[in-house]
């Protein structure tokens, strides 16, 4: 059990990523969309850590990278929520299909 193959991790990450993408593209509730984006980012972290541990050339950089990505994801979500709150106060809704003032 000491050396796990890399593939299961990558496949899991890919599945998570696709789930996140699907959710981000189809969900109506903006908060859920943000959550889905978070899911995609976490899939990335999984990838990075898996590569860092079981990749061709194991190397700590991947874990460092994932720390950065976690932080930045947090900042992004914070900004996203702040904007959502500002929008909510003006519009009284969190449904993304009501984001429709701007269109061609």
């Amino acid at each position, binding site marked *: 059990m000491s050396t796990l193959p890399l593939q299961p991790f990558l496949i899991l990450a890919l599945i998570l*990523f696709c789930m996140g993408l699907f959710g981000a593209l189809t969900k109506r509730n903006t908060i859920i969309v*943000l959550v889905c984006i978070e899911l995609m980012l976490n899939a990335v972290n999984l990838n990075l850590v898996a*590569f860092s541990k079981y990749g061709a050339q*194991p190397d700590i950089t991947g874990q460092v990278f994932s720390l950065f990505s976690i932080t*930045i994801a947090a900042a*992004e979500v914070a900004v*996203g929520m702040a*904007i959502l709150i500002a929008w909510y106060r003006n519009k009284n809704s969190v449904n993304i299909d009501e984001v429709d003032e701007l269109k*061609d």
Partner: protein
Amino acid sequence: MDLQTLQSFEWGIMTPEFTILIAGILLSLLDLFGRERWKKYLPWLAVISIGIAILFLGNQAGHQDVSILYDTYIFDPFSFYFKFILLLGSFLIYLMILSRTTNHEIEDRGEYVYLLLAALLGTMVMASSGDIITLFVGLELLSISSYIMVGLRKNNLHSNEGAMKYVINGGIATAFTLFGMSYVYGISGSTKLVDISREMSGSLGSGEPVAIIGFIILFIGLGFKISTVPFHMWAPDVYQGAATPVSAFLSVISKAAGFMIIIRLFWDIFHSIGVAAENDALFEAIFGFVATVSILTMVIGNIVALRQRNMKRLLAYSSIGHAGYILIPLVSLTPMSLENIWFYLLAYVFMTIGAFMVIYILEQAKKSEDISIFSGLFKESPLLAVAMTIFLASLAGIPGTAGFIGKLNILIGAVIANPAQYLLAGIMALMTVVSYIYYFSIFVQMFIREPEEERITNISGLQWTPLILCVLGTIGLGIFPFIALNFFS
């Protein structure tokens, strides 16, 4: 890392970044603790700091290549020239901010001023990074600052919406970028561009499909910043929602930064490899994809621009189209490509900021962004109309302007490439003609239609300054392009 190693680094090459960083922090402190009446001088401080940064940067001209902090920060001609564009563009945008006449709700807020600096800092970090982590951090510093800037007009529903769409699209794009980066890291086992390049030039064996997927996903994600298909839909909404200087920033600086990062990743990694290397399939798959994206971007941007009436949306779509043009040199990968992209971006700085400046003036005077603000402009203010004509002519690529030289370079680059990219060149030419239609329809408004009731009042000297600089840049680069081209080489 002990003190000695630390001191052995040549920190001097980071002076432009430090200038911007210190200015940003200083501005935020001044904004927090300063008196209310000082606050209108904040943009001046920013202008001065950018000026100083440009001087520092100029001082580095001809400096040999340096890399500090274990190759994460590199100084090379590429970073030098692109930082020049970034600083120049930001300088013009701050002049634009300074020129405001009405007291907009956000423009007196300090965030507006120093977030721009933060975003600029992000782009400069991107320009100099030699490691994908640094690259990513710079990118996100830019993105997150931009999200806030777009949404800064808190009580404006358009602004909220633009910011909302920007964040969501941006978040998805970030995820794509990171996902691609993680594969690239996985294949090469390093985040340093040098190592990645070396790994990619060798035989990847069974890792090749992963590398292809990784790079394509990475490109899709990075395409967000330069608004290429499929991440182009945010641009019109965001440009419309944001305050005009912010739109200009997104359209120029942010886009230039996006190209920078793409060039860093794709040019640095693949140029040295070329088609001759072992990884033909990798190379062809990726550049085939970029070519497809380029075509789609040109076509969609220009075609959809045809039916826009809001000026900022129109410019947004046109900027999508331009992004498609600028991708062509990347696909053709000739020795001229870098020069071509650089020149086009430089030209783009002048013409786009100029156009946004005119819109900004009119928008403040007429409280509208519809194309009809231009009607009869020639009668109201002939000089403004002439300036706009020059910018639009440049955007359309009419000879005598910088835009023409830019397009000419790209076209020649595409034809001279081996194998020649006739299809790309042809579509670019075709789309240029399409773009004539919407650019010229603004001419129709300015010169042929009669003016509406609201008249613009006189235009102040502060407003003229960026305009004149932009006109000089656009015309100057159009007639004497060799100045810039010699500067570059």
